[in-house]
């Protein structure tokens, strides 16, 4: 088994855990944590593909991962802000009760 495959397996595992968390948890903060897990799984893939790719000296994968982390940080800030705003408004963070946008 090549190191790349094992990295990819770990990343897939983390992604699956994140997805499951995002799908099944009712608490909005825990859903956000799931999303963060999925993002980080993607970052792991970036690094793995870069490290074992044809041009490991070009640092492209690293750049991508750093950008992605920055975007994830911004996303987490916006997401937490939204959760706080919703909580203030509805006194809950239960996503099943946040269905006022239904058609």
């Amino acid at each position, binding site marked *: 088994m090549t190191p790349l495959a094992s990295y990819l397996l770990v990343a897939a595992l983390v992604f699956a855990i994140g*997805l499951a968390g995002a*799908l099944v948890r009712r608490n909005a903060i825990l859903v956000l944590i799931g999303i963060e897990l999925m993002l980080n799984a993607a970052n792991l893939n970036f690094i793995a593909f870069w490290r074992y790719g044809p041009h490991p000296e070009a640092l492209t994968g690293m750049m991508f991962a750093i950008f992605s982390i920055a975007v994830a940080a911004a996303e987490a800030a916006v997401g937490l802000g939204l959760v706080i705003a919703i909580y203030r408004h509805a006194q809950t963070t239960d996503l099943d009760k946040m269905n006022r946008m*239904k058609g």
Partner: protein
Amino acid sequence: MQAATLFTPQLAASPIAKILWLIPAMPIVASGVISLLKQPRRKAATVLSIGSLSFSLLLSLIAFAHVVAGWAQGAAVCETVNFTWFQFGSTTVDLGWVLDPLSSVMLVMVTFVGLLIFIYSIGYMAHDENYTRFFCFLSLFAGAMLGVVISNSILLLFMSWEIVGLTSYLLIGFWYQKPSAAAAAKKAFLTTRVGDIFFLLGIVWLFAQTGTLLFYNHGAGSIEGWALTGLLAQPAALGLSAATAIGLLIFAGAAGKSGQLPLHVWLPDAMEGPTPVSALIHAATMVAAGVYLIARVYPLMQAGALAGGTTPALTVVTWVGASTALFAALIAVAQNDIKRILAYSTISQLGYMMAGLGLGGVAVGMFHLITHAFFKALLFMGAGSVIHGCHEEQDIRKMGGLKSAMPLTFATYGIGMLALCGVPIFFSGFWSKDAILESAHGWPLSQAPFYMLVFGAVLTAFYMTRQISYVFFGAYRGHNHAHESPRVMTTPLAILAFFAVALGVIGTPAWPWFRAFLDNRAADVSLHAFAEPAWLMLLLTSCVIVVLGIGFGWTLYGNKSPNAEAPDALERAVPWIWAVLRDKFYVDEFYGATFIAFYEWWARVADWLDRRVWGGAVAAVTWLFGLWAQLNRFLDTNVVDGTFDKGCEEISTGGGLLASIQSGRVQNYLRILALAVVALVAILIWSSRP
């Protein structure tokens, strides 16, 4: 009878002829301004109407002087100003005015008598609340009448003629609150309309035949030589030439306006109007318009005259005139309303004028028109003064003895009465009536008109004597104290009385100035004319007429002061004749039983047709449309609306289905997204399989 002199228009119109249009325009403009004034602005209305008419009188006098000056130099003045109103195809509709002896004489007469009547109206209408309206109508009337006088285009003449008819209607019905006045106005309007229809037909025919509406147009006018030759050559029905037929049609219009048989019925009823109106319209001007019209188209009436100087058209004019003169004089004998007597007298005198035109030519008829205008206006205004003084009483049986209460009115009225009776030598009426009788005596066709006119003259003297005895002699039979009228009313009477006497001077056989002026000959003074046996015979006849009439009247009525309720002297003598005369020969009843009954029947038939036939047809169509509308509504509700509703329902259901996906649960969306990605990946892997 002299051959008529055909005027040849001068090429260049003089300055006065060019501004001749101002004469009718001034009163019409004044009328328009007055109509905008408020009711209490009496002074402004008076100043406007009298000022404008004075200006017209001034212009008329200048025009008259101009024509007389031209005539004295031996040049016939007939100046025309013509212009094209509008044009369709190659046909032009021309209007224009003419200044010739005929129109200049009429202008002076109408403006002068009109002005006196305007002044008189200030006093007569002083207490009427519609004073300004009265002066508005009077001015419009005067303007329209002057328009008739100066017209050189038969169309312009007809338009003015109709405005005259309209104002006559308005003025007769001035006191429209009285049902009798409203009815009289309607009657006058409708009766004259009968004549006007024929007149219009005559105009159209004349226009169709000659292609011009102008009377004088440098030889190309409709009553000048060239057109008349064409008209004579054109045969109409019954062996008459077109000239005769058109002449008769125009005469029908003139008969309507001038109250000739059988269209005279409106004139006595027209006495419902205020007395100045009776004087202005029904004595001096409007009724004279018919006579003037015949004088204006005289070349047409006279075209194709034989050696005797008469034509079929003129023969008809003569007979109608003579019959009217006698007929109306007979009726006047048995009337009791002071104004009605004068009205029938007017009809009778208009008959004389028509007969004069038919027998002796333009000058004879016109001379009587002018003298009659003065003394009949005088009589009417005198009657108005009497009515005013007797507190609006018009029945002569309830007057009497007014000669001491109203001396000035009595004196002037007496002069007017003597002029109307034709008392020899001193009064103008004698000279003008004398000329008519002289022409009648020399008429080659028949002596009957002469005897009719003579008998009419006897009756005239008789009924005027009867009237004046009832009104001014004997004892007063009324209730309230009679009083003399104010100065503003009596002064015009005095002026008119002066002319009723003085005007005779211009028409004596010794110095036939008026006739020479109209016929465009030189006027010679020849005192020998007084010594001619024929004239002396006529003088004798006139004396006999006057003595008979006045003597007979005085014997029956003079100074006897009958009781107001007592039967008339003539009624006691011959009751059945009296009854026939009092009821005006039953002409109104005859019309009522024939024409009016027929129209009523016809109106009823038309009403029935309207209600049943046309109304039924309309109702049927309405019902059909109603049915059609019901069908449409059924289709609309069930087919169109149904389809639409169904479509909407389907769309709504579909929208609901789709909306159920949009549950608002974020995790559901994410779940679907994840499943879709998995499916996508599966497909990719599946499809990239070697």
